[in-house]
Every structure is written in structure tokens, then in C-alpha cells.
């Protein structure tokens, strides 16, 4: 499995994503600078967490207009897989590669803590190694992670089984609509999620629940 991690000037989980990919796949991902308009030949593109361009206007707004995002869209259009974590998820919605928007947390505060999730959908290249309904714990670390979409869109996401991860009962950290933590694109090759699976692949760091996501990708892409 060949992968690339996109690096925006204020990405800050790019190294974490790289380390997790190295650890899980045994291969070093290509680190792609935001001004590069060409992507290397890869199976998976990761949009990491961080603040892309400072995120002063709206999280991910400026990143969605960057040179590299045109190539990421093209990659997804061809069926290539794209994983957006945290700021990466925000970039994906701002780029309209995923529906809806990520809004300021309901409590108006940044929140960093482990959060219980339910794997809702296992029919995807990102989640096939999990059990349906499996309870996992990933940390969240964001100020604007409250997923919003109109009722019609939410109904469609649920109807098409595109809600990949939901916050477990009572664990919704940001007021997201219908406890949505992560969603799939229509073609199920793009996943955006607020919690950080790449921070839970190492036992010393308090959990390995994120491994399933990488193992799913390895299986799907081999």
C-alpha cells in the first residue's frame, strides 16, 4: 500500500500520520507539500490534522483552494482513497468532497480527550476490520468539530449507510448532529472523521483501537 500525507503550512498531525502509517504498513508515506500540484502515484492520500493555513477565516477554507487539493479531488474522482482526520475532515467538507460542515463546538471550547465511538458501518475500505457496532476509543482534539448538515442530507447519509463512526451514547464532545463523528463519500472511498485514529496505534500511548482503520486500509488496498 502506497500512501501520501499532505502537508499544509500549519499541519501539525502530519508527523503523527506518517509515524502511524510507517508503523502499520511498514512503508514510509510520501510527504506532499501544499504547493505541489502533482500527487505521487499512491493508493491512499491522508489529509492530517492541524490548522492548515492558520484557519483564521474558517477551518479548512483556504486549504480547500490550494493547488494540491485539485489533485486530491482528481485522485478521489478516479476512485483513489482519501482519509481526512480532524482538520483533514474540515478540508474535505470545505472542498465539497464530503457533504455538510464542521462548526464550532457547542461548548465553545477546544476539547482534547479520549471519546467512545461506535463503528457504524463496516462495509468500507476504512472500517472492514472492525465489527459492526464495535465500541472503540479515539482521542478528539478540536475546537470546530460539530458536524452539521440539513435534515435531508443527514437522512441520506444514514439511508446510504455512510455514517462510519458515531459518538457513543453520552460521549458527543461537540454537539454534532445525530452524534456523527465520521462519514463516507458516496463512492465510499473518502472518509472524514474528527477523532484521531493515528493517535491510538501504540500501546504506550494508551490504546490501539486505531489500528483497525489502518489494517482495513491495508487489506482493501493490497
Amino acid at each position, binding site marked *: 500500500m502506497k500512501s501520501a500525507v499532505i502537508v499544509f*503550512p*500549519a*499541519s*501539525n*498531525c502530519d*508527523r*503523527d500520520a506518517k*509515524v*502511524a502509517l510507517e508503523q502499520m504498513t511498514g512503508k514510509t508515506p510520501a510527504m506532499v507539500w501544499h504547493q505541489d500540484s502533482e500527487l505521487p502515484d499512491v493508493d491512499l492520500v491522508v489529509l492530517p*490534522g*492541524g*490548522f492548515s*493555513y*492558520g*484557519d*483564521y477565516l474558517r477551518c479548512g477554507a483556504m486549504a480547500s483552494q490550494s493547488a494540491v487539493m485539485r489533485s486530491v479531488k482528481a485522485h478521489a474522482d478516479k476512485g483513489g482513497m482519501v482519509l481526512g482526520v480532524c482538520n483533514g475532515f474540515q478540508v474535505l467538507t470545505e472542498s465539497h468532497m464530503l457533504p455538510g460542515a464542521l462548526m464550532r463546538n457547542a461548548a465553545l*471550547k*477546544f*476539547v*482534547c*480527550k479520549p471519546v467512545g465511538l461506535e463503528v457504524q458501518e463496516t462495509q468500507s475500505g476504512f472500517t472492514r476490520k472492525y465489527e459492526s457496532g464495535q465500541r472503540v476509543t479515539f*482521542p478528539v*482534539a478540536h*475546537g470546530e468539530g460539530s458536524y452539521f448538515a440539513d435534515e435531508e442530507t443527514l437522512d441520506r447519509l444514514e439511508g446510504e449507510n455512510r455514517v462510519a463512526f458515531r459518538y457513543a451514547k453520552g460521549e458527543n464532545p461537540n454537539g454534532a448532529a445525530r452524534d456523527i463523528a465520521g462519514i463516507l463519500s458516496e463512492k465510499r472511498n473518502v472518509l472524514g472523521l474528527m477523532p*484521531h485514529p*493515528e*493517535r491510538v496505534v*501504540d500501546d*504506550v*500511548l*494508551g490504546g490501539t483501537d486505531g489500528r483497525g482503520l489502518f489494517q482495513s486500509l491495508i487489506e482493501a488496498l493490497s
Partner: protein
Amino acid sequence: MTKITPAMVKEHGLSESEYQKILDLMGREPSFVELGIFSVMWSEHCSYKSTRAHLKKLPTKAPWVIQGPGENAGVIDIGDGDAAIFKMESHNHPSFIEPYQGAATGVGGIMRDVFTMGARPIAMMNALRFGEPSHPKTRHLVSGVVSGIGGYGNCMGVPTVGGEVNFHPSYNGNILVNAMCVGLARQDKIFLSAAKGAGNPVVYVGSKTGRDGIHGATMASAEFDDASEEKRPTVQVGDPFTEKLLLEACLELMATDAIIAIQDMGAAGLTSSSAEMGDKGGSGIELDLDKVPQRETNMTAYEMMLSESQERMLAVLRPGREAQAEAIFKKWELDFAVIGITTDTSRLVVKHKGKVEADMPITALSDAAPIYERPYTEREAQTGEPAYDKSKPVLASLKAILASPDMASRRWVWEQYDHTVMADTVQVPGGDAAVVRIHGTQKALAITTDVTPRYCRPDPFEGGKQAVAEAWRNLTAVGALPLAVTDNLNYGNPQKPEIMWEIVAGIDGIGAACRALDFPVIGGNCSLYNETNGEGILPTPAIGAVGLMKDVTKMATVAFKRAGDVVILIGETKGHLGQSIYLREIEGQEEGAAPKVDLGTEKKHGDFVRGLIEAGRVDTVHDVSDGGLLVAIAEMAMPRGIGASVGMAGLAEAIPFWFGEDQARYCLAAPFAEAEKIVAEARAAFITVAELGKTGGDKLTLDNKDSVAITDLKAGFESWFPNFMAGEEIPVTN
């Protein structure tokens, strides 16, 4: 040329005798720009004029110290060619005026101090002190400071892994925001600020210069009065995005060999960075202010020299490397300009629009800066054991203490900090010390900040000792070998003899403890004049400390992990209640003597406990400090909801036994067979040790009689902070 009047001199915070000294050094009347430069360089903040004579007494050397005080940050050897670089610094006054930006720029400033030396920041800590919770401004300040620290650190992608938050009325008008940054570098890639050699280009990188925070350094050296809130427009605004770019660009440039010296522009901006680089390199610096990237129009030389715009650095390059450096800064979309050159004149020369605005010997700003041996008088000691009601039920008091402002969980605070970014945080906030793995290795750094200001008021010497000892103990309790200290000395007005005594005795106490514990001071910061309307703060010499753990898998944490473990107390309990949390929270008294720290015992007990952790024999350790033994046991029980049944040992009175704050104590839990061995070994080593009981169940039971559910304790412990912060918005008058 502007004629300098006595009013101008006064406005610049310079005394008559200081101005006379300037006249003598210059041999003429200074220009207005020169007066501004003197005022910031001779301010308490930059010159340490009240404390320099005393700070010299601190121990600063050890075989593992690579760089002691005097640079942007201290450096220690952590093996394998790696170095840890760290420092703590205050941003008290700006944070009181504008809590979000004050705290944010405090974080940004200390990060620059660390990455200017070639290190990538890997962890942030902070020590915060606020006024009493009921004060109308406290909530607003807590909220602003916490979100400012988070807003900056989170964007930088550096985990904020812990710290301290205390409340006390003495901080009502003068909060303390002390931020600490720890970075990692290779020992052969450390950058210093000595601008050696003449004819080298001086380059300016980072953000543009505006009229931000002009005279911030002198503001930080003057007492507050209510009118100072009108100074808001001069508070600096932080831009963490630019700082992130600056960090990456600097580290990229540092990977080349283009840099001779580099220094961040912190307090007193261009003035102090150029003067310090020239001073340390023994060279002169000539600046052409027309070349300085400017954000505002018509800025004067005075404004540019004193601006405290954030996210800027000054570097001296090897000649001919300008293009290489410029390419890196352009890639990161940062300003880059050659604004001067080093000379062999040892003078700071500032030109603007074809005019020489300043021309002064650099030593006049550094070595010749005034040093004061200010007079000090000891305050009468508070002695004797305060009275308390012996009949008060112990567990009810425990519950009240756990739900009190200073003892309740700080989760509300640290959940707003991204503490797991960089994927190396092995011990998150809430334990004795934070533990951050050295990326790609099994090694880790343990980090803590500590001071107990309520001990420092009655006994600044013992309080200084205790701050160091507690930091040392906290590092030990996770299994780390304590290596070095950065101090952040927050005190009142040094021109008052009693305050000066607090400072002198505090430094003496810190020095004594650092010497005894082999724990050198490698950097620090003084913040004086922390008073409002004549009210002094509690003396608060915050100690930031770093220790090394060779094998992170052996790390101990405070949480009870198994039922059936034996609870062991290391150290002697005499039941010292003076200045204790118990006395303050339950009896409403801030009375008595502070507990004494026996440094020999401290070392002996700590080395014993660390040996057990390093050998993989115990994984459950908590230092016994604020609140005493029963609070420590409750803190061990709450994380996983594992209870314990414990009883008294060696003392007849319950309240002093459970709540006394005797020093040099640790509480451990280990399975029976191991516990028996530990107790025997401790006795053989003449260490006071006691078996208090066993873990298990979901209650905390005392002497097989009274008990309380752990969930009950936890409810109060976890709810105080969120409840306090959720209270009705209190009107803020500003």
C-alpha cells in the same frame, strides 16, 4: 533633537540616579531613541537589577549541563547525543490586561526562546495563579488565559501536558501566567546568540513590525494601578500560524550552516535582541531601520526599536548566505530582510531615514546596567501549631477538600489543551508529572512545575526549598531521574524591604535544595512588582523541572491498578498542619509555620522509590503533598474507581495524620509479596515506612469503620471547576 526633560526620564521608568549614570556613560545627553533603549534595557525585566546579585548564588553546573543561565534557554545532556532545552517565563501583566492575548503571546514567546536554540518544542507546561474564585474578574481571567494558552499551543501542534492552577486573594489584581517550553535538539546542533565577528549580515525574519506592546518590558516592571487597564492598545496580539511557519523555517535554516547567531525578539524587541547578540559576541551592530519590514506607516525609529510585535527573529548569518536563507523564508511565506551588519566597534548604531538615531556602547546596556543590593528586612516568623477542632469527621473533610478550588480536578483546564498531539505523550495531565517520549526511542522526559506559595509567605526560605523538593519528588514519583530546573520567580515590589527579604530568602532556599538534590538551575526569569494598589502577591517562585526516564515502559502512575495491593507509605508523618490545605479549607485559617524540608531525607526517600520504579517493581506511586496523605490516597483511588481500606500508623491523632503536609513522603501500592520485600528493604535502609492497608472495592474505608464511595469523592472532585466556570457571567468593568 528632542530635549530630554526630567518628566520624560520619569515616564521611562528611570530614576534620577540612573539618568545621571546614562549621562556619564554617554558623555552627552541621550537622544530620545537612546533614552527609550536605556529604559527597556535597564528595566527590571531585562536587566534583573534587583535580583542579579542574588541569582549568582544559585548552583548552575553539573556534568550534564550543556548550557546554563544566560542564553535564551538552558540545555542538558539526555544521552545518545540528544539535548533537552527548556525554560519558563512569565507573562503576568499582559495577561491581566488582556487574558487571551497575554497568555497566547506568553506561550509564543517561550516557544521562540526554545526553538531559537535549534530545538523542536515537544511539550508545554504552565503555572497559573488567579485571584479568589468569588472575585468578579477571576472567571473571565481563567477563561481567557486557558483559551489563550490552548489557542496558541494547539495551533503550534505542541502538546500542553500539564501545569498548576491555584486561586488566592493575593492574586486578585495581579494574576500569574508562567509558561514553560521543553524542546529537543541534537547536541551538535545547538544555536547560541553570540554575534561573533564583524562584517556579517544581520537579518530580520518573521512577521512585520507594528506598534504593538511598545514599552511592554517597562510595563512588566511597574506596579499596577487601576488606570493601567487603559494600556490595552499596547498589548501584543499573537499569530500562532506565523509562529508555526517561523518554527519550521528556522529549523530548516538551522539544518544548514548559514547561522552564526540567532535570537528571538521578545520583550524590548529589536533593541534587546540586537544588544544581547552584540554583547555576547563582543561585537557591534549597525541597524538600518529603513529595511525593517513594517506593518504600519510612518513608524519612527523609537517605535521600531521598542515594538514588541510577535513572531520575529534576528539572526546573524555567515556572509554570502543571505540568498540561501531568503529562499527558505520565502518558501514559508515569511518576511526576510537584511537590516544591518556586525561591526568591530562594540557599539549599537541605529540609522533611520539617513539620520543616526542612536549610537551607544553596547556594554552600557548590559554590564553597565545598574545592579542594586536592595535592603531587606525579615518579617516576624509565624510559628506554633494552630488550633483545630479535633472532632470534625475525617471523611466529610476529605470530601470538602477534594471539591475545593485548589484541590479539585483541573480537567476543565487541560481538556482545552491538545495534550496528545505529536503522539508521544505517555503520561497525560493529572498525574505527578507529565511524561513525553523522545520520539522514536524508549527514553522519555518527565516534566513538572511546582511551588506552594502559601508556604512561601510565612517562610520564604523553606518555601523555596519546598518548591524545588516537590518538583524533584514529582519527577521521581513517575520514575524519572531529576536533572535540572528553570525558575520563574514571581514576587512583589523589591523596593519594599519585606518583599526583598522574600526574594533573597526564596533564592537561598532554592539554591540550598538544588545543591542538595544535584538539581542545577539552568535558566529562569524574574517577575517583580506583582502588586496592585500596594497589595503584594504571595511569593511564588515557580519551579519548572525536567527529568529523564531511560525506559518509558517502567513508568509509574498514581492510579491504583489492582485490588489486593498493599498501600505503603514511605516517609515520616509528624502531622504538620501549619499552612496546610486542611487548615485553610476546613478551619478557615492561613496560620502556622510552613513545613520544613529535610533535604537529606528527601534525597534518600526519592532515590529509594525511583530505584523500585526503575527495577519494574512498582507501577503505582504518588507523592504526598497538598492536602496530605488521605488526599493522595483518594487521588490514587479515583482514576479507576478502585477503593482501599486503610488505617493509621504511628500517630494517634486522626486529623494531623491524614491531612498533615509533612514532606519527603510517597504513597505506593504493590502486590503483597513485593510489598513485603519493599517494606523490609526500606527498614533495612532506615527509611520510615508503614503499611496502611489494601486496595479493593469501590469505597475508601478508614480504620475498618467509616467509608465513602469513590464515586462520591469523584463527583465533587470533578465538578467544582466546570460548575465554577459555568456560573453566571459576571460583569467585567473595562
